[in-house]
């Protein structure tokens, strides 16, 4: 009897041990999904779409960092090395923004490729719905390559989600990357929703056309740039806000074409990260408007666009001029979204394209649309060079801190002249961002392939 008891006890313990094993050793992950089951059910389609746009939004503050802080718009006022290097024009290949931007672009490309690999096989989702997300993915991938090519020059071209293939990819000539970007954007158009049916936080045919307008402008294809800008100006779906203040303080205002949305009072806000625009412009004031920029934005010609900056006397000390960039609020003020495309840019694209093609009157008319709205004196028609200079300045007034200035200076060949005057540290190499040092270290095909001057 006693034997039975003892061994029974042992047996029970042993059984408990064995049955407990599975529970102990194979806990169910409860806040992650394993990748192999993502996009295998129709419910995943909207969720992955949010992931795609979330990734695009991840690139948005970095376009501002690249477009404005590499140029003459701002000076460094804080403690972060990233902004110190950009503000003082001592950019190194280990710059955190260079690697963050690169990484965020390839994140978009990864998710786009993931969608393009998985979604066609998900036949339980209606064809039209699948095609729409595929088109959005294609457009975003094109946009990512467009940004990559103008920021870094030649970049690796990724077509799959295969990690082993993608860890050893050489740089592809910029022209080729841009060709592909164009192809991706154009390919997307037929299946994108018509603009009227979508809010401007998501892609539409209008967004694709705006992207193409900018693409052709950068590509110096003036005719196509004008054509695409025309489509948006004439569409009637977008109209200029009555005052510039509304442009700053409103989300999804009537002139927005494509805006990266944040939820306001939730976990979904820009936060206080290194690249949170509110954090770097207002919270920490890591970067402040440069004196050169202030002279422009506070001029009479700029008009109401002076509201781009804010002044606080108590902050003025030493090298701090007391000004802050006012375009990106914290969550409580409710204008923390980052606008990627809005109607005034289309006017400016058309103005520049017209000026380049000799239509100076048309160019002046476009500029004056914005001047009138800003309660600024109108521009008179001069010669072509003056007109181009005026448009360059107008882009500063209107599009300051929306990620344009550096790209504009580089594409027009004006970077050397303007930037050397701004900073004695400027070098021609800074017309491209460096390929991130970590990428060169980790991708064998990039060894020795750094941009010249870094």
């Amino acid at each position: 009897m006693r034997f039975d008891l003892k061994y029974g006890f042992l047996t029970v313990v042993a059984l408990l041990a064995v049955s407990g094993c599975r529970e102990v050793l194979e806990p169910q992950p409860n806040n992650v999904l394993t990748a192999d089951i993502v996009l295998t059910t129709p419910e995943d389609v909207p969720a992955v779409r949010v992931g795609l746009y979330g990734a695009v939004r991840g690139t948005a503050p970095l376009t501002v960092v690249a477009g404005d802080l590499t140029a003459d718009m701002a000076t460094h006022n804080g403690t972060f090395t990233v902004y110190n290097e950009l503000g003082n024009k001592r950019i190194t290949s280990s710059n955190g923004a260079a690697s963050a931007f690169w990484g965020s672009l390839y994140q978009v490309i990864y998710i786009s490729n993931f969608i393009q690999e998985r979604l066609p096989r998900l036949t339980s989702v209606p064809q039209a719905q699948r095609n729409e997300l595929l088109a959005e993915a294609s457009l975003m991938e094109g946009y990512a390559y467009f940004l990559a090519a103008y920021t870094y020059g030649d970049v690796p071209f990724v077509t799959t989600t295969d990690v082993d293939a993608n860890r050893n990819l050489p740089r592809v000539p910029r022209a080729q990357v841009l060709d592909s970007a164009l192809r991706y954007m154009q390919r997307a158009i037929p299946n994108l929703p018509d603009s009227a049916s979508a809010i401007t936080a998501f892609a539409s045919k209008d967004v694709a056309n705006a992207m193409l307008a900018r693409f052709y402008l950068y590509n110096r294809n003036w005719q196509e740039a004008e054509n695409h800008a025309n489509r948006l100006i004439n569409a009637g779906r977008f109209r200029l806000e009555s005052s510039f203040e509304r442009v700053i303080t409103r989300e999804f205002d009537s002139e927005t074409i494509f805006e990266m949305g944040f939820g306001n009072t939730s976990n979904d806000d820009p936060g206080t990260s290194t690249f949170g625009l509110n954090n770097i412009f207002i919270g920490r004031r890591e970067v402040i408007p440069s004196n050169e920029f202030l002279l422009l934005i506070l001029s009479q010609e700029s008009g109401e666009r002076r509201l781009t900056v804010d002044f606080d006397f108590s902050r003025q000390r030493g090298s701090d001029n007391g000004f802050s960039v006012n375009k990106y609020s914290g969550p409580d003020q409710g204008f923390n979204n980052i606008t990627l495309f809005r109607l005034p840019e289309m006017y400016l694209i058309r103005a520049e394209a017209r000026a380049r093609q000799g239509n100076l009157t048309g160019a002046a008319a476009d500029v004056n649309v914005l001047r009138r709205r800003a309660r600024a004196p109108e521009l008179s028609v001069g010669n072509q060079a003056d007109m181009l200079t005026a448009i360059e300045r107008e882009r500063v007034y209107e599009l300051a801190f929306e990620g344009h200035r550096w790209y504009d200076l580089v594409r027009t060949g004006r970077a050397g002249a303007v930037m050397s005057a701004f900073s004695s540290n400027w070098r021609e190499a800074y017309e491209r961002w460096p390929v991130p040092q970590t990428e060169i270290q980790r991708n064998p095909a990039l060894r020795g392939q750094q941009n010249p001057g870094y």
Partner: protein
Amino acid sequence: MKILLRFFLFSLFVLPALFPTGLHAQQTRTITGRVTQSEDSEPMPGVSVSIKGTTSGTLTDAGGNYSLPNVPERAVLLFSFIGRQTQEVATGNRAAINVQLEPNVTELTQVVVTGYTTTQRRDITGSVATISSEKFKDIPVVGMDQALQGQVAGVQVTQSSGTPGGGITVRVRGATSINASNRPLFIVDGIQVEDGALALRGFGGQNDNAFSAINPNDIESIEVLKDAAAKALYGARAANGVVIVTTKRGKAGTRTRIEGDVQRGFIEMVRKPQMLNATELLELQREAITNGGGDPERQGLIPGVTNGVNTDWVDAVTRRALYQQYQLSARGGNERTQFYTSINYRDEEGVQLNNRFIRFSGTLNLDHKASDKLSFGSNLMISRLRNDRVKGDNFLDGVYSGAIKSLPFFSPYDEQGRLYGPNSGGYAGFPNFNPVAQALLPRFQTFATKIIGGLSAEYAFTRRLRFRTKASVDFNGVTEDQFEPSSTAIGGFLPSVGGRGYGVYSNGTYITLVNTNILTYSYAIGENETHAFDFLLGNELLQRTERTASVSGRLFPRDDFTYISGSGALVDEGGSFFIQNGLVSFFSEVKYKFKDKYLFGATTRYDGSSRFGSGRRFGFFPSLSAGWRISAEPFMEKYTFFDDLRLKASYGFTGNERIGDFQFLTQFGGAQYNGNSGLAPTVLGNSALQWERTREINVGIEASLWSGRLSGTLDVYTNLTTSLLNTFPLPTTTGFGGFQGNIGSVSNRGIEFAVNSVNIDRLFKWRTSLNLSRNVNRVESLSDTLPLFRGYTATGITTTNVIQVGQPLGTFWGLNFLGVDPATGDAIYEDLDGNGTITEDDAKVIGNAQPKLLGGITNTFSWRNFDLSLFFQFSYGNKILNFSNTSLLNAGQDIQTNQTREALRRWRRPGDITDVPRYQFNPDRAEEDNPNNLHSSRFLEDGSFVRLKNISLGYNLPKEWLTRFRVQSVRILASATNLLTLTRYTGPDPEVSTLDGSTAAQGIDFFTFPQVRTMMVGLTVGF
């Protein structure tokens, strides 16, 4: 014949000893008697009384009495008890024999807890160190990790700061891992306890410490398992060493011993940072501005005005703090049931204003013998902590950090006695905040409840075959209650964070459950147990769950509302989280002893961890060890002064599994866009992810001489950790930055020496114990030849630390500072690439934080009723990065921070020979454009120190005074910690690590609150 008989009896599950053998036809009789302790004549229950050369014997009862029948003529009786010298008494023709047992002077027969079993120290073939509670009872340590400091060879214990209840780094034989945890496994009464920080919110590098919830006064002993033979039984978690903590348990006796203990004292800063006063700083700043071509008057720096205020900010935020601790304990019981119970209250103020640590804890440990075969035990420890924290280190709004940086030109209070807030004109603006306000105004309270409970049962099938099962829980419940009003930096200055008040409320529960089942069998054959075997077979199940929730709110209508509900404040962020992991293990041990001379041991552990994929879940960790008792060899007979001389060697494998969960799976996690939630890729999985594996070899010698007057151990080891759990970096063109892989290897080689001696043993006694250790750590390989940069980003170079093949972990990186040019006052750096300019390419390894030698020495003197103990601790050859000085000795980088007094040595005019460069301030100059403040070896200092860690003087009141008050003992104690420190380090204290717990970036002083000095008196009364 006898063996056969024993086997027969064994198979009947009957204690063979209780049976008369019937083989001896001699005349026998019964002997009775009483066994008492030699020192106080207290009766001793449980003493084994046996007839030498036979298996017949008995145990004494609760009164110390025994009765042994069937004793043959001319027999010799053996009286033995753990911790006492065995006595042999020839019976002669006596019928009653009373014996007094002497305590063991030697540590040889001391029982050492080696994890799942215990063994006598003389039979240990591995490397195990024991710290008894005697070693730390006079030191006001807050936790068991602190109790280890300086006491054990091969164990490095660093207090990260002088904050009460703060983080402490413990490393056993160096660091083995780059990315996984380097903390030893801490086992308290059989359960792996929560280590590291309990609070969810880090406060500028300084964390709180889960171990501070465990009252060290309830600890009986701490064992540190250092080599494979000792710790491989803990397999997958043992690579960083195992610390086994055993709490006090009841003792059978006629009387219950009640002890009350009171400690009270005060705490103050050991050394304050030496900063400039207002006049000195004003002169320096004016000089810097003039050197930069500016006009000091235009910067508002006017002699007689600016320095009209001279605030000593460090004085303003610190105080002489009070320390008090009260403990009441009782232990006792009879031969069937024993208990230990205690209650403790500890209240330790921080030296920084508003910083306080309070612990309330209680313990109840019970043992009960239900029958000869079945016994039960339980342990229960409950504690409640309240920790009022202040922000520290590299926080701009930290208290101490703010105080050192703050300009003496400002005051904390305005004319009406109100604290200056962040937006008031009377105080310097960003990046400075009023540190007094930062200390007094926020509420940062952490409340923690910890319960360690366990229930065990043991069943003796026979005297040799035993089964033990134990279920334990370690429960930790943590609540953080925080509010920063609008008059603080976060609550008022940064609109993106607080704006109008910022409140955080978090809850976390961390629960570990363990079930251990062990079967042991011991067996000996031959005359005098020529062949002695011990077998152990066990299994263990461990499960840890973690549940946390946190909510933060902003925009409080007024500062009077400090909680989110009902205040109308905006919920800024909220979240909840759950995760669990587990371990399933099987283990075994075989010990074999031949003629008590040759010792062999083998252990295996087979561990399955939920942190790895199905194919890689289980790991196998074996060890082999051997010992040779040279002193038992015939050729040693003439050296009678050797009690024991033993050579030992071990070889084995241990593992490390402490990484995040589910790293083997490619994962999609939550993503957000425009207020919608969705999915995005987060982790690239690695199905081949495996344990970190450490191969360990240890050779040592242990000796005990002259009846324990001198004893010591010498160990040499070489360990190699391979398959490091490490991020395998990927180019982001893959969509990921990398994955968790097994790449690289790290080695630790070292030598340890410990010696205990009784130098004088008369009325005046002098004992010394010394330990010395040297560990050489080296990164053997990484995923590729590229260095990994860690630590802080620094001016002009990548980061302050580097992980590089051939260098130890904790290596510092920077420019090589050659001195100050006497002609220009500029810093000169080594131009490594010889290209004429100083860039980050000129950076190199400039030193490392690992000491060449560390150790401790304790001298104890006693004379009559007085005893005096002096405990010195030292570290030699380690470097400290005085990163604070990049701000506090900044060559005119800015004029927003005060400077240390070393700035008075600055270069001022051509011909000055100094090591502090010229001060020059240009308002619009970038950091990189100040060549005098680039990150270089200028900030690296020798961190060697010798410290009188503790001195305590005790006096025991003479017994004859006490007896009439029915008091057994009264002890009066005066004790002081950190009374004396010898170091060349120029910062406030050499024992510092701003990145609490970091291995790759240890030994950095970045506005870290320095160690404090505690002076206290204590009174212990025993009833």
